[in-house]
């Protein structure tokens, strides 16, 4: 998977990595901090971090001894934007579908999905 967006999706496919990312949205953490809540080895956590790093989602500063892990919010935002844009397109279609269904409702009083809208029309 050479596509950067695919790497981001793949990195976030794992629940532990998603949880790590969620915690990093609040503050930078050291590897030890990050590992604390999980019942896995430090080595396993380092492996997860490597996947997140390769996807460009997190970086680790070189200079400080504790090398805190930092979330690259821009990459994360970009992905969120693609999905939100896609969602908005779908929602635009569905809003048009709402209108089509409302018209069908009017033309089809024998099959009312919203009885309250039909009240007063019953014989």
């Amino acid at each position, binding site marked *: *998977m050479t*596509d950067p*967006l*695919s790497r981001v*999706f*793949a990195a*976030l*496919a*794992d629940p532990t990595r998603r949880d790590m990312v969620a915690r990093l949205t609040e503050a930078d953490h050291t590897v030890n901090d990050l590992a604390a809540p999980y019942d896995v080895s430090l080595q396993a956590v380092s492996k997860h971090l490597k996947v997140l790093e390769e996807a460009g989602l997190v970086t680790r500063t070189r200079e400080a001894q504790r090398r805190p892990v930092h979330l690259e919010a821009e990459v994360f935002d*970009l992905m969120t*934007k*693609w*999905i939100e*844009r*896609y*969602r908005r*397109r*779908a*929602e*635009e*279609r*569905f809003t*048009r*579908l*709402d*209108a*089509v*269904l*409302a018209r*069908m*409702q009017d033309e*089809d009083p024998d*099959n*009312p*999905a*919203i*009885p309250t809208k039909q009240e007063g029309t019953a014989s």
Partner: protein
Amino acid sequence: MTTMQQTETRYPEAAIEADAEVPAIHIWRDFQATPAQLFRAHTDPELFSSWVGPTDVGADITHWDARDGGSWSYTARGSDGREDFETSFHGCFHTVREDRIVQTFTWDGMPDGVALETLTFEDLGDGRTRLHAVSLCDSFEDRDAWLRSGMEVGVNDGYAAIDRMLAEGSL
């Protein structure tokens, strides 16, 4: 008004999920309609064309045979805000049933790519029906390309427009 609905998720607006396990996109949306009405809106070509296409122009149905083993094609025209585009899609109906439509979906700009779409219409029992659409793509790359394209804009034009909007911060 004691209710057990607190744990019940509602989708008054579309919810999207990029599946983590397989290259699929899920969409959920609740409608004020019966399953039969939602089914008609997806299988009657006149009704379908009135909502599926871009807002101002809509879609031209070029072929429509909504039954098991039938097929469909349509062309959508619109504007990405800078230039007009025209794009077409085709596929085959595999299962056409009141509560379920299974079909293939190909964007003609990438004729070798094909997604398998499964639409289910679930009666929520209160006059509403839930649409759950799953599009299973060939690969994660194709799936993610769909997510980026928004499915309506020609991919190259679309990418350029999206890149511009992202650069301008207007997305």
